[in-house]
């Protein structure tokens, strides 16, 4: 049994007098213990909403979540609020995008770590402080005992993200959800944080759901990748498979739009035409069709289904053909 089984997860944002907006549309995926799974897509494709729905952190009102999220067999969506609170931080941890705003500005870092330890592991403040030093050490923060007394604004961006990761991992959760953990950091720090995450995941056997729009992050970290578009998974593949042979035109477009060091000087980046529409209608055609270079008439009439393809899954009527000869095509 997988550690996390997400089945048919659907999130509708409903407002009175308006058509409901389906942000996440029947998403299903598994996360095995120790596995790193990527959720990739551009803004508005539903990746963050998926993670918030798994953690049950969406606002109480204004949305409808259906489907199931089984964590070690228990459906998180059906737990009482209290049971869910007990699990958050203990079984499932989360790291957010902006480390400065995700830390409480008026409380020293140390207290924000011990708070979780006291809450879930029943430690006294004293024991928890010792553990906190250990945790900060583990995430590579120098002079941890001094840092404990410092406030978030006194730490650099990278330090803050390290501290956040330490807090999220304080109770050794079995699943960590990282929602764009490197977006707010500069490139060198990004690399450090990714290396840290990879190391921690390997050392502790924590499963990781990596939410990102950055395919570079995916390439360095994920075992399996789910590409989302318009709230649906359009392609799932193992990492190497995805980069070697992207099948969905959207994935292909994402990869083609990344600047490459080995590209010629006058080669231009290839953007994906258009932008994500506000409410993408998957019924009656493929939501990506208006932007798709491979679109066929059938794409605008029949909504494609997610079918097994090349060891992964694919939702496309007219996928990108694998190159005929080895060495050509998309690298």
């Amino acid at each position, binding site marked *: 049994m997988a550690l996390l089984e997400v089945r048919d997860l659907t999130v509708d944002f409903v407002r009175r007098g308006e058509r409901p907006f389906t942000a996440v549309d029947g998403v299903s995926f598994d996360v095995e213990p120790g596995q790193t799974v990527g959720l990739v897509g551009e803004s508005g494709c539903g990746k963050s909403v998926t993670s918030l729905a798994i953690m049950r*952190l969406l606002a109480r009102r204004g949305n409808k979540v259906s489907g199931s999220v089984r964590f070690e067999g228990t459906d998180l969506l059906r737990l009482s609020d209290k049971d869910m609170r007990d699990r958050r*931080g203990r079984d499932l941890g989360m790291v957010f995008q902006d480390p400065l705003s*995700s830390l*409480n500005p008026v409380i020293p870092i140390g207290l924000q770590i011990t708070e979780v330890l006291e809450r879930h592991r029943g430690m006294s403040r004293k024991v928890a402080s010792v553990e906190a030093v250990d945790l900060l050490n583990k995430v590579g923060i120098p002079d941890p005992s001094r840092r404990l007394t410092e406030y978030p604004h*006194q730490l650099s961006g990278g330090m803050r993200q390290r501290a956040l990761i330490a807090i999220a991992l304080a109770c050794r959760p079995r699943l960590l959800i990282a929602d764009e953990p490197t977006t707010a950091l500069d490139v060198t720090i990004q690399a450090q944080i990714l290396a840290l995450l990879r190391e921690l995941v390997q050392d502790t056997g924590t499963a990781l759901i990596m939410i990102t729009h950055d395919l570079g992050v995916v390439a360095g970290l994920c075992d399996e990748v789910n590409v989302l578009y318009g709230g649906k998974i359009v392609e799932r593949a193992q990492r190497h498979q995805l980069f070697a042979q992207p099948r969905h035109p959207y994935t292909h477009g994402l990869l083609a739009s990344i600047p490459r060091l080995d590209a010629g000087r006058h080669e231009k980046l290839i953007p994906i035409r258009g932008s994500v529409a506000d409410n993408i209608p998957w019924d009656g055609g493929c939501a990506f069709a208006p932007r798709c270079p491979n679109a066929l008439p059938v794409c605008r009439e029949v909504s494609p289904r997610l079918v097994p393809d090349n060891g992964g899954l694919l939702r496309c009527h007219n996928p990108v053909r694998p190159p005929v000869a080895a060495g050509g095509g998309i690298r």
Partner: protein
Amino acid sequence: MNTLLNKKKEPIDKLAAAAGHSLGGEALRRMLRSPVAITGAVITGLFVLLAIFAPLIAPKDPFQRYLQDKVILGQGIIPGSQAGYPLGVDDFGRDELSRLLVGAQNTLLVGVLATVIGVAVGILIGGLAGAFGGWVDTVLMRMVDVMLSVPSLLLAISVAALFAKPSQWTVIIAVSIIGVPIFARLLRGSMLAQRNSDHVLAATSLGVKRGAIVFRHMLPNSLGPVIVQATLTLATAILEAAALSFLGLGDADQNRAEWGIMLSKGAKQFLDVRPELAYYPAIAIIVVALGFTLLGESLREALDPKNRR
């Protein structure tokens, strides 16, 4: 490796600390540079000191009718400034300066108590509304709206009039009630902003209990505007307390040295004879209110992140 890093880091951090990098330090530094803040601080500081030590400083007993035989009300004679009585005496022959000083104590007491009570009740209401949201928020805030819709002085007068026997507490309670809706609204607003903040979401994602989220994560981050408003309210509380006393809704005891009562008598009875008896308390009230306003205003400016330089 770690120790190497430390050695490099330490001096930088010390510099940062010396430059006053903490929020409070930064605000203090900016206030010290502002003449408005210093003026406000000096006035308030002086007022507080005078008020606290009034019984020791006052040259004469403020209740003793020293020159009563020299006062001839029928002929409009009230002795003015003279040796031993720098500001003259009032209609009972009591030393005006001593009464002003002791009156300062009264004013401070009323102002501070009224503000503290207002803040406390306001935090309670605003905190409940902001923490629970939903119908609790709606009900409490409609009540607050009703209170806000009545002009403040009218509200205070109505409250004061409810008491059968007016006393100093009448004034304190009436004035504190004026502050309640302002504080409640302010706190509720910033609590609601905190509810949707990233760090509260992050704390929720760690399974922190709701009580801890409200008291440790939301409330401390929401109090800033309330504290600033409290300084400003101190000024209006002093003015309103004086106004209530002026209107005769305060302490009925004529013996009491109270700026509002002194002003009322001076203005209503002796303005042609000895206008100074109205001027002195009036000036005292204005200067003190101004001091608190300047201080509060500059505190607000210093704490405003948009002004950060």
